[in-house]
């Protein structure tokens, strides 16, 4: 690892001012669960790190019936997993977090750091996108709120400006008659995911017709992939096994996976079919009861 200058910010304001000063040579450090490995492997070598991990002001989980959920970017994965509030209102997030890396990583790693590292195999982004997440980016010049689905642009790349810090994740209140399901396939629980998917299904109140659907996947494209055509095939229909099967096939055709040491591209597409089918079916059954 190369040497770097180190600053521990004592407030978000100070962090913003530091990053605006060092934006060309610096990186923001949160839990470092991806960053430290990248530094060690010399994949990146910033000459300055601005440590924000200690900022209590970005460590919170708050819910309001009207405005929904707000998660501070420095909330750890473990805090989200264990939050009674999230287990009650957004149980899919808690379920998803249980399989993010290992307990040790979840204890120290933060949700904001995870999103900013923009690893296409990351689990949180698809689940958050399905739930309609927005993120707040702040800098010394001001702040902006963007949809999380517009945040990622390529492998490990986002729209974040060098002087911006991700401060908050915002979710709308849980939608009525809607259920969200997360499913993953990995050879070991805590291991690298071959594919994971999050599916939201909304039914017409009191009927079993699908009113709205969203399917988002990780590890099958350079960014979290929203399979729009597949979701479109579900809308306005009673979700029979045949309808779900066709949509799952469409979802697989929308993916663009790569072959790596964990799985071939072809295999990933097969797994997509299985996971989308299972997750959609389960979400549909739950939505009818919601």
């Amino acid at each position, binding site marked *: *690892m190369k040497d770097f200058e180190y600053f521990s910010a004592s407030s978000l304001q100070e962090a913003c001012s530091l990053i605006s000063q060092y934006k060309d040579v610096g990186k923001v450090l949160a839990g470092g669960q991806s960053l*430290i490995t990248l530094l060690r492997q010399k994949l990146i070598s910033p000459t300055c790190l601005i440590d924000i991990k200690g900022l209590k002001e970005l460590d919170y989980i708050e819910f309001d019936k009207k405005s929904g959920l707000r998660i501070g970017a420095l909330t750890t994965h473990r805090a989200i997993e264990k939050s009674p509030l999230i287990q009650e209102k957004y149980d899919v997030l808690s379920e998803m977090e249980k399989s993010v890396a*290992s*307990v*040790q*990583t979840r*204890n120290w790693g933060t949700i904001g750091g995870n999103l900013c590292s923009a690893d296409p195999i990351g689990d949180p982004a698809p689940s958050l996108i399905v739930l309609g997440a927005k993120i707040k980016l702040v800098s010394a010049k001001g702040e902006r709120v963007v949809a999380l689905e517009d945040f990622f642009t390529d492998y490990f790349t986002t729209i974040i400006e060098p002087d911006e810090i991700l401060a908050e994740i915002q979710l709308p209140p849980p939608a009525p008659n809607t259920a969200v399901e997360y499913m993953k396939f990995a050879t070991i629980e805590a291991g690298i995911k071959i594919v994971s998917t999050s599916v939201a299904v909304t039914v017409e109140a009191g009927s079993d017709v699908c009113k709205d659907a969203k399917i988002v996947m990780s590890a099958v494209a350079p960014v979290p992939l929203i399979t729009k055509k597949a979701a479109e095939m579900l809308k306005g229909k009673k979700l029979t096994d045949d309808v779900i099967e066709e949509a799952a096939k469409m979802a697989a055709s929308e993916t663009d996976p790569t072959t790596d040491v964990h799985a071939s591209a072809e295999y990933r597409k097969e797994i997509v079919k299985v996971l989308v089918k299972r997750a959609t079916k389960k979400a549909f059954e739950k939505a009818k009861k919601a």
Partner: protein
Amino acid sequence: MDSSKKTINVKVNGESYEVSIKPKMTLLQLLRNELGLTGTKQACMDNSCGACTVIVNKMAVKACSVLAMQVNGKEVTTVEGLASKDGKLSILQEAFLEHSAFQCGFCSPGKLMSSTAMLEELENPTEEDIRRDMEGNLCRCTGYVQYLEAIKSVVQKRKEGKI
């Protein structure tokens, strides 16, 4: 003093230390190279294997992937801190011995730290809880069953009110 160094204060196994370090030093390097606590093992160095697991403020973390600067003002427990000062092993350490939960032993300190943190957090973990919370600790001798049995035996003793 080297001007690029920073001073941190950290409590390790109950002892307070003030050390001057380069910011790029990881917690693992601090423990092993600066404080001589080599019970914490260095293996994969990419946040995968869990051999370097230690407890920071009651949470298990992988010391290879935490900067030492980030434990400034915090309390760290390593495998050396599990036994009492007079050398009496912890209940978990005893259970690991009883169940022969070691083969080569390299992953054992990490496993002890993860399971110690889990048993602090959960009064009666189920088998599923145990398996899930121990996922971050790999054993390349594949000696998984014995240490699961060891942890379960401690939970059982708790249930029976023996400890």
